[in-house]
């Protein structure tokens, strides 16, 4: 129980620290945010009204607590550029990014685990060399470049997939929804799969060296049982740890991939917010983004505690 309590506390503390850093950092932004929005030639009356609306006349600490207590109630303030509540923008964008992320994780795991196991079992074979080359190339390729190539080959040339855009599962059904996400998810997942496959191979090789594997073999257990029941199960701790880190990287990767495939997700919203210095929007997105990442880490850590009870004792 202690393990889970500690992880939960560290989740809350990290989230708090991140919101504070974000808020603090944006305070030292040179210039008056109201002037940034309206321009230095803006009507003084309008500037005053906007300052009032943004609460810029309060001291920073008051504003931080006002903002954070709003966040807990789901009120992130209003976006300056879109003139829409940030929470509405978030609600539209979150499903896009999460669907993309989950689809990518699924693809990455489906590619990496069989590949990694095959490479480990047939170490030194042609399969192994192929796996090593695949993982090196996968790690080196910029995912956005891969995305552009995929669009032009599979969408524009062959017409198998839409070249971009997002269709919601509720309006068009599962088929078009999955096909609109397949190419971006593939571009996003290949580098992750490459790293994961390397890790799967290394952990399986490491466990196959252990004494209990030799014991299992010598008592005549079939090859596949040794592999799946003993080796894979023990290697899964390492694999899972790396998969957790990969998920964080993947959420970051969605920012770029959404841009390539013009998907209206969190990444595109964040990029627009950053370029237009839309402070309420950027703040809200950083909190939600960091919250998603930290929360998925928390879930990963909890599952890890179930798979390998030893780590709960540290």
């Amino acid at each position, binding site marked *: 129980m202690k393990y889970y309590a500690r992880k939960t506390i560290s989740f809350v503390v*990290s989230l708090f*620290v*991140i919101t504070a*850093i*974000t808020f603090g*950092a*944006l305070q*030292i*932004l040179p210039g008056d945010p109201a002037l940034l929005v309206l321009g230095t030639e803006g009507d003084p009356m309008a500037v005053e009204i906007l300052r009032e609306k943004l609460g810029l006349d309060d001291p920073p600490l008051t504003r931080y607590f006002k903002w954070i207590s709003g966040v807990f109630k789901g009120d992130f303030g209003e976006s300056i550029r879109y003139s829409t509540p940030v929470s509405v923008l978030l609600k539209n964008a979150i499903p896009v990014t999460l669907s993309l992320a989950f689809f990518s994780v699924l693809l990455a795991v489906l590619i990496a685990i069989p590949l990694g196991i095959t490479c480990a079992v047939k170490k030194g074979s042609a399969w192994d060399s192929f796996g090593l080359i695949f993982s*090196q*190339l996968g*790690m*080196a*390729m*910029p995912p*956005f*470049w891969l995305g*552009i*190539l995929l*669009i*032009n080959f599979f969408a*524009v*040339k062959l017409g198998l997939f839409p070249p971009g855009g997002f269709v919601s599962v509720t309006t068009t059904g599962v088929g078009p929804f999955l096909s609109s996400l397949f190419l971006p998810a593939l571009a996003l997942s290949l580098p992750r799969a490459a790293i994961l496959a390397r890790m799967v191979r290394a952990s399986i090789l490491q466990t196959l060296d252990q004494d209990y594997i030799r014991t299992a073999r010598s008592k005549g257990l079939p090859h596949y049982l040794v592999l799946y029941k003993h080796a894979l199960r023990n290697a899964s701790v390492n694999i899972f740890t790396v998969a957790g880190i990969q998920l*964080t990287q993947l*959420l*970051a990767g969605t*920012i*770029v991939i959404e*841009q*390539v495939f013009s998907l209206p997700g969190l990444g595109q919203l*964040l*990029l627009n*917010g*950053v*370029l237009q*210095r839309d*402070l309420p929007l*950027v703040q809200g997105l*950083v909190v939600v*983004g*960091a919250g998603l*990442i*930290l929360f998925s880490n928390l879930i990963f850590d909890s599952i890890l505690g179930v798979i390998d009870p030893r780590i709960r004792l540290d």
Partner: protein
Amino acid sequence: MAKFMERLKQINWALLIGIVLVSVVFLITFVSIFYTPYDPIDMVINNRLAKPSLTNPLGTDQYGRDVLSRVMIGGQITLLVGLSAVLLGMVVGVFLGALAGYYGGLWDEVLMRIADGLYSFPAFLLALLAVTLLGPGQNTALAAIAVANVPVFMRITRSNFLSLRETNFVEAARAMGATDFRIIAKHLLPNTLPALLVQASVSFAIAVLAEASLSFLGVGTQPPDVSWGRMLKDSQAVAGIAPWTILYPGLAIGITVLGFNLLGDGLQGK
């Protein structure tokens, strides 16, 4: 023949290929300081989207600019930003990690908590936050990549120092009256260097990808400066009719990253 095959297996291929790729990239970038076939930002409107040919070996982009010249020169900023960012992150990280690992106690507790906080801040969010603060540009990219690297090098230095601190040769040095500075500079740092070099190589590969991604998003290197990521952004719309405008800048990024990843693997002796 068998002997020859045995020899072949003993070669550290990762290191060898890594060194070759990295050298090629640096050599081409170095040459581009003095020579490119054409002016990389010169627009030739009646030679737009020209296919690769003898006059333009890698073709031209939608403004008639020579892709080969641009790919050659595009490495300058990426490599400079990557190298300075990793170096800066490493120097600060090693210094703070050394304080934490050597003196321990309160130093360790405070510094490592800060490192954890920084580490838990997703690097890409950090970079975009930096863009909001400092505005788009290559210096922003540099600062963000450097900051993201600090906790990485802190952890490595600290854990190495912690275990080295207890070794006999450090104890012997201390018994002979060596100062803290001498112990750190003469004994601890040289023994941590291999681990740092491996990490630097991997970090550099990540930095190149990060710079390219930021430039692709339009918040890194700004025109008229040329960078591989920016070339991809500018030519994305014409990728279908002129694939060469996309293919080569991407390959340049890939080869650089591959080279440094292999170099890191090779140094580790994999």
